[in-house]
């Protein structure tokens, strides 16, 4: 997945404990239009399990997970 993802909004959730990342994301995503993409920054390893599951259960799409740095970046496309 090399193509550049166009990000419409970034949520900085670094340092937040569970279940805050998911809570904030599910609210934050409502602020972009359907079809737009948000970028979520998290330092919580739990997010690595949470986001794939949350996108599936909420019907959104996880485009990409970038684990290369200290901070994990999730790119999520709003579908509902």
């Amino acid at each position, binding site marked *: 997945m090399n193509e550049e993802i166009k990000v419409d909004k970034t949520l900085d959730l670094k340092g937040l*404990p*569970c*279940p*805050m990342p*998911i*809570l904030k994301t*599910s609210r934050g995503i409502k602020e972009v239009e359907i079809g737009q993409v948000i970028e979520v920054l998290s*330092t*919580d*390893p*739990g*997010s*690595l*399990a*949470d986001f*794939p*599951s*949350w996108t*599936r*259960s*909420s019907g959104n799409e996880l485009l990409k*997970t970038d*684990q290369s740095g*200290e901070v*994990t970046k999730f790119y999520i496309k709003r579908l509902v």
Partner: protein
Amino acid sequence: MDQNTRNDLLQLFREKLNSAMTYYLETCTRCGICTEACHVYASMGQVKHISAYRHEIVRRIYKKYFKARGKVWPSVGEAKELNETALEELYESAYSCTGCRRCMVYCPFGIDTQMIMSIAKLLLIGAHSEPEILTLLADTSIEKGKSLDLFKESFMEGVKKLEKDVVKKWKMEAGETAIPMDVVGADLLFVALAGAHSIIPTAAVFNAAGEHWTLSFFEAVNFGAFVGDPTRTQLILDRILNEAKRLKVKEVCICECGTAFRVMKQLAADQPFKVSSITEVHARYIKSGRIKLDPSKLNGPVTYHDPCQIARNGGVFDEPRYILKHLTNDFREMSPEPKYNWCCGGGGGLVALGEDTLDFRMKSARVKADQIKTTGVTTLVTACENCHTQLNNLNDHYQLGVNVKFLTSMVADALMQ
């Protein structure tokens, strides 16, 4: 509300009517002995927050549809129809009750308000009026159980990143993994919260004690229980039960999460493994000399907040005090009898609802803040994530000037090499 919806809801109600629930609904004499038991009433003084008033809201519907009286003479018990207004009342009642069961200690019959509120919560789910955020979180947890393969690799990779922090706390023998995962035949399965702060210190302690342990892929917290949905609660629990069976562990140890511990202890009563809280495990390590703690790390007076679901409702009182005895010589009790400890005000899903409930949580827990203030401590320790968040909020709101700490991280910080 149309008749079909009502019938569906009443069917949900009926399913809840086991013998214990029926005792509770038949019996309350409205004597008012429980009046001062509820921290919400004690803090805010509104009658609607007295525990008996809360269950009367459910009981009125019971009287209307499940007692012959409801047809013959409804007014004698003020029986009430189940309609939109009733749902609103149920919501207000159920989501201002933290399920701490302090009132159950007061009631001469031992009526369990949390249990009666579970009817209210279930009816709200049936009517799609529950806080959707809790259902969303519960569904995410359930989905995790189904799609383990999807995130297994990346999750393990994420956990790997934490290992250097564990090693910083406790130097390891070469060849050992600081955070083992997926180990078949391990003695102990540790169910953490999805968060570094819950994994790192505990991992350090396990390694110091030489425990043969493995970290669960799933988080302990059970949002199904918060939203009061028995089906979801069970599904979320099953993920861990299945993992424990797959790995053939002897013990499942729950991190500092009150609800998770109580749900696990109750619903996994006859499993081939035993269920313990991390506090019990740590106390065991100290008792048997597997870990040694350095008491000089902590200055100033210390108190411990008993998380309701772990202490009054889970039976773990002595262990945290035993551990704290090894960490400080200025320990102060908050409540003359731990079973009377005030709830932090954040249980029952209120903390998980975040900002929305913040104002109410602060107002309704005034008595808790006062209680903390009276002890005059500088360090406030607890063993539950929910309580920790709420106590931190209280600390800011009421300017208590205390340091709110997790018991596990204090143990980890005081480990002697």
